[in-house]
């Protein structure tokens, strides 16, 4: 299995799906030049400007035109250069794309993928660092993928492109430069199937995106203290693999949820609520959430580190829930 950068795994998925299905095309700001992180570099040479379309700086029509093209049989993969800018397109995405199939029935399908890089830790400040996953979850109709490894980036994106519903595919900026083994060719990762990134028996850590890496670092540190955590990476937030999460919690009796988005109303809040509804009696300690503080994400390094969670916060949360039970 070749080792690939996460960004190249994304590009391979795009390339393979474009080669496989002539209905697939790309559009986004500066996309033929690779956009802000170089992910789509080289694709215009291969597929031409008809299928790799640079757009004006116009997020609303990028997503809206994607929806319209999808309705009539195209399979657009559009890019929002930073996830922060998806806020400019949410009307098209959530009032239109997310509801068409429900409102108009089977004649209407929206096989649209919106790829977008999220995450902080680069000092880009309040408008270029956010993880807005939970905003997409609050309204039904859009699927959400959050790949944490190069292999999942490729496999989930190929699945997203073949899905007949709008999918927001959240790539993480800090992960772009990470390498990992990626299966060649037809590598599809199904939606709604979590990955156990590390097995353990003392506590479950459900981590998304960049936080998976932090959870694995925390696991290593905790192992030194004799604490074995199980790291569950849900891979898609909708559909969410609740059976896998519940199974792990039943085994460990302790749950920590780690995400880079803001704490209030976050992904962790939703998972915590579901686990307390469905597995309350299995828990031996309080559920702990690790998330960004409810503060806009600052530029300055010490401030950004204060707001954005990391491995140390996961370690602390695991110890808190374990200590509370003894």
């Amino acid at each position, binding site marked *: 299995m070749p080792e690939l950068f996460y960004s190249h795994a994304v590009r391979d998925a795009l390339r393979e799906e474009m080669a496989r299905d002539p209905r697939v095309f790309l559009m986004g*700001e*500066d996309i033929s*030049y690779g956009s*802000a992180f170089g992910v789509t570099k080289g694709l215009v040479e291969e597929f031409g400007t008809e299928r790799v379309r*640079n*757009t*004006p*700086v*116009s*997020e*609303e*029509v990028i997503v809206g035109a994607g929806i319209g093209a999808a309705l009539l049989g195209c399979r657009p993969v559009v890019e929002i250069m930073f996830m*922060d*800018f998806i806020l*400019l397109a949410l009307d098209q995405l959530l009032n239109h794309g997310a509801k068409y199939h429900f409102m108009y029935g089977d004649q209407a399908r929206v096989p649209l993928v919106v790829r977008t890089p999220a995450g902080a830790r*680069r*000092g*880009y*400040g*309040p*408008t*270029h660092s956010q993880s807005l996953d939970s905003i997409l979850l609050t309204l039904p109709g859009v699927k959400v993928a959050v790949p944490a490894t190069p292999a999942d980036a490729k496999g989930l994106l190929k699945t997203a492109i073949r899905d007949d519903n709008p999918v927001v595919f959240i790539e993480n900026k800090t992960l772009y430069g990470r390498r990992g083994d990626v299966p060649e060719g037809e590598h599809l990762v199904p939606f709604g199937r979590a990955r156990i990134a590390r097995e353990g028996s003392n506590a479950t850590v459900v981590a998304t995106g960049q936080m998976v890496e932090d959870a694995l670092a925390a696991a290593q540190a905790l192992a030194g203290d004799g604490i074995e955590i199980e790291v569950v990476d849900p891979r898609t937030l909708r559909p969410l693999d609740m059976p896998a999460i519940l199974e792990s919690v039943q085994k460990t009796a302790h749950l920590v949820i780690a995400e880079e988005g803001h704490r209030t109303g976050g992904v962790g809040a939703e998972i915590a609520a579901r686990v307390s509804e469905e597995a309350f009696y299995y828990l031996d300690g309080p559920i702990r959430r690790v998330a960004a*503080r*409810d*503060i*806009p994400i*600052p*530029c*300055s*390094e*010490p*401030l950004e*580190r*204060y*707001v954005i969670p990391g491995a140390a916060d996961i370690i602390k949360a695991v110890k808190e829930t374990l200590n509370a039970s003894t």
Partner: protein
Amino acid sequence: MMPTTPTIRDPALAAKLYRSMVLIREFEQALDQLFASGAIRGTAHFCVGQEATAVGVSAALQAGDYVISYHRGHGHFIAQGGDPARIMAELFGKATGYSGGRGGSQHVSSFEHGFLGSNGITGGGIPVGTGAALALKLQRRNGVVAVFFGDGAANQGAFHESLNLGSLWKLPVVYLCENNLYSMFTHLRESTSVGHIADRAAAYGMPGQIVDGNDLVEVFNAARQAVQRARDGQGPSLIECKTYRMLGHSKSDKRAYRTREEEASWQAHDPITLFRKRMLDERILTPESLTAIEGEVDRQVEQAVRFARESPFPPARGLEESVYA
């Protein structure tokens, strides 16, 4: 298009404007090096080559007027009299920066300087600037808002909604498009349905004007007229300043999407060189006075960098208190 009579004859004003342009230039060049050497993290957008638009517009404003900017905003802030040391400190993420390290390059402001802020959302300042003009009108304050944005931003819905509303309500605002031919790596002809952004003014019932954005005098004259019109209650104008950013879009951009020949042709039309030559030719400023200004600015930028380096980082504790008023 050289206007036959220069409007800047006052040596004190000419010296002030020259100084402001050189300060912006040297600030940006120092910053470019600081990024290259890894002294600053994050990112920034430099306005080298675009100094005349910022300085020409600020010169046309008076106390009580405002400027609102976008991601390429250091020049607008400095032209409004912002302290380069505190802007530099912001870029270093230091407590002494205008946003206390919270905002960085793209998110700084100082209302006392009439600077309503830069912002990282392309086009995002256009509605806000329009609303600031609404406040000035409602409060009968006789002030004007200059709203800066790039050519790329003119393709956002926010631009079109704002120009319509501003014109409909005859708000005291001047829309200033700095058309530097590119939005990131994409050339204007690949992103925009018209060759001139100013042509869009017609759609909103306001005057649209094209100026040589690298000619300080031309920018100043056009801005003065538009500001007067806005102040007189006749509503907004759209001024398109044709210009060019000499450096990349942001740090670490290798400029593969444009030719060195194109860059050279704009280099030959450098706003600072143009103004310098003109002031010398017309004997408004002397070579000695210009050299003296350049020396002063050198020292000021050095001091700004030293101030930024030596300033402390902000404490993280209590950051929660900064979120709500």
